[in-house]
């Protein structure tokens, strides 16, 4: 009797710990939002909330991709290059001022598939050539930027495709189409994570790869598939940036690699793998966006902003991993 009740008690404690851990980032988000809302009336306007959500769209899609890689315990720095290549590809394939192409949706699909191919390349370099994911993806990013620069050829391609342009401008229920696309991506990402073998294994690889290998699972194809999936998300991210800016830029993905990792980590996805997930990352994305928007709205001087933002991010992550630290005794 005593034994059973002991087990039940410890399980309850564990559950409470898990709930506490998961609650950190959403609580931080609410607190941050309330602080900014108290300080600035413009911040709490409906218009600004729409603006924050719209601004989060691209980062949300990129973070969806990177989350799968992080869950697996790998890292992915290829977003900048892949997005650049996909941005140039899509802008040259839809109606634009450089050539007579007008492939519309097919052009967008090609850009996403290209991103997927780049992701595949990272994954293959990781499992076949044993290049650490850090280096493999950094290399793939450079390749992506190289490909993008070749396609750029000195003249900025501006898109004239009405459909792609409308994604950033047209609104449905107060939010831009891009935001709905991002929401769809989060939903798809969550379904993959929750209900497919790919998603479950990504978690398992990050948690205990050896156990998985010993139980006869071939992890390599899944690793490649995860990178390919992430690449497809980056490809779509590049398309979305192109829609926003109305032009294909080599620098389309500038900074998104680290912003996405930051958002994922702030949301509670661990760099060591096996924890977190798409919904955590989505919270992280909104948190980062609230922070950047809020600092401007309350009028923090631009000379201070970078530093203040960094400080808050470090504090948020520290708060999020405190329960973790007590459980594991050590955090790398």
């Amino acid at each position, binding site marked *: 009797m005593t034994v059973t009740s002991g087990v039940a008690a410890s399980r309850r404690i564990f559950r409470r710990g898990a709930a506490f851990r998961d609650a950190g980032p959403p609580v931080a988000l609410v607190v941050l939002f309330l602080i900014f809302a108290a300080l600035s009336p413009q911040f709490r306007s409906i218009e600004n909330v729409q603006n924050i959500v719209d601004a989060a769209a691209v980062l949300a899609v990129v973070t969806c991709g990177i989350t799968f890689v992080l869950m697996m315990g790998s890292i992915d720095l290829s977003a900048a290059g892949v997005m650049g290549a996909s941005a140039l590809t899509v802008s040259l394939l839809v109606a634009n001022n450089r050539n007579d192409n007008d492939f519309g949706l097919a052009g967008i699909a090609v850009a996403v598939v290209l991103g997927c191919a780049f992701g595949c390349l990272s994954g293959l370099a990781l499992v076949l050539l044993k290049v650490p994911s850090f280096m493999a993806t950094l290399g793939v990013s450079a390749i992506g930027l190289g490909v993008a620069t070749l396609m750029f050829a000195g003249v900025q391609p501006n898109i004239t495709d009405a459909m792609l342009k409308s994604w950033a401008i047209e609104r449905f229920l107060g939010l831009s189409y891009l935001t709905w696309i991002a929401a769809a991506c989060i939903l798809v990402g969550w379904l993959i994570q929750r209900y497919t073998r790919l998603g479950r294994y990504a978690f398992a690889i990050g948690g205990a790869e050896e156990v998985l290998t010993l139980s006869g699972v071939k992890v390599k194809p899944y690793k490649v598939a995860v990178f390919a999936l992430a690449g497809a998300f980056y490809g779509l991210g590049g398309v979305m940036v192109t829609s*926003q800016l109305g032009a294909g830029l080599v620098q389309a993905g500038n900074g998104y690699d680290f912003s996405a990792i930051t958002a994922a980590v702030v949301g509670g996805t661990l760099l060591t793998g096996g924890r977190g997930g798409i919904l955590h990352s989505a919270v992280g994305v909104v948190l980062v966006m609230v922070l950047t928007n809020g600092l401007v709205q309350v009028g923090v001087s631009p000379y201070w902003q970078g530093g203040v933002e960094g400080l808050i991010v470090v504090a948020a992550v520290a708060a999020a991993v405190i329960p973790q630290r007590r459980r594991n005794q050590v955090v790398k």
Partner: protein
Amino acid sequence: MKIAFRPTAVLLTLSLAVVGLAACSEAPAGENDPAGAGACKPADVKLVGQVRNESNPYEASWLAGGDAFAKTVGLTQQRLTYGGDSTKQQEQISQILAGDTKCLVMNVLPNGDSDTAPIVKGADKAGAFLVTQWNKPADLKPADYKTWISHITYNGVESGKQIGDALAKSIGGSGGIIALQGVLDTAAAKDRFAGLQESLKANPGVQLLDQQTANFSRAEALTVTKTLLTKHGDKVKGIWAANDDMALGALEALQQAGKSGKVAVVGIDAVPDAVTAVQNGTMTATVSSDGTWQGGIGLAIGFCVATGKLQVKDIAADNRAFFAEQFLITKDNAADFAQPKTNPSDFDCANVFKRVAGPLK
């Protein structure tokens, strides 16, 4: 038989081979005598243009200008790009200087102020003719060197003021504006913003509602502008951007906020898209440094000295480091700048210093 693959050994062999090659090619260097300047036949001159990358229209037009000049003298320009990486730039320079430097002419865009000194010292030692643009530390002066002919830059305070005034004029002299700054710790961003402040003093009706940095980036400018538009609403009558990329980002933000055409936007650099926007009226003004001219002029000055048509000692002190003329582009004259083109007579040895707007103090 089993062949063992030893990465260390392979690396060592490779690096030895590279050192060997470098040593061979270095041999002819150092024999050059800067005093022998002017002894070069035009056909022996080697032209090198170096910029950060070809993935932005401005630097691409720079290299195109270099090509255009090279063509007028029957030569080709060697195009170098270093991807904004200071180390890579220095490596490329030392590689070039390790070759035959007797009639070498270089037109270089140093990555940052601190990158200029090693380039200048290397070129001086090898006797290569050098023109640098945009970046140099204030205490490093071409006048102290024999083959560093000129340093060309632009007065950011002036351009910041020019577009500030154009913006004030287009909003009728009164109303609120917002400013998008560049990378805060660069001289270009500081000078251009100082220019805006001068303009604000001259136009007391114009009020600076807010200023934020968008790091010279189109994507960041889009987000920052959207945020500032929700913050200040209809009070925003104009947007001052420290470069055209940010101005174009601001235009997209206006379009997404449904305020296209209701807010005046100005920028600097005259990238092709901005010139088009000025031409069709969506943007109010931009300032051109004329990238194609910059690409050609550095090589032209070097070529004139190398072939003896100009003597370094005859060049006026004010022309050794100078602000070049820049052009305010508004709807009236945008058509002239729509197609980047070079005027061969600008590169005549008698005209190479025609665009000096003032000495760089």
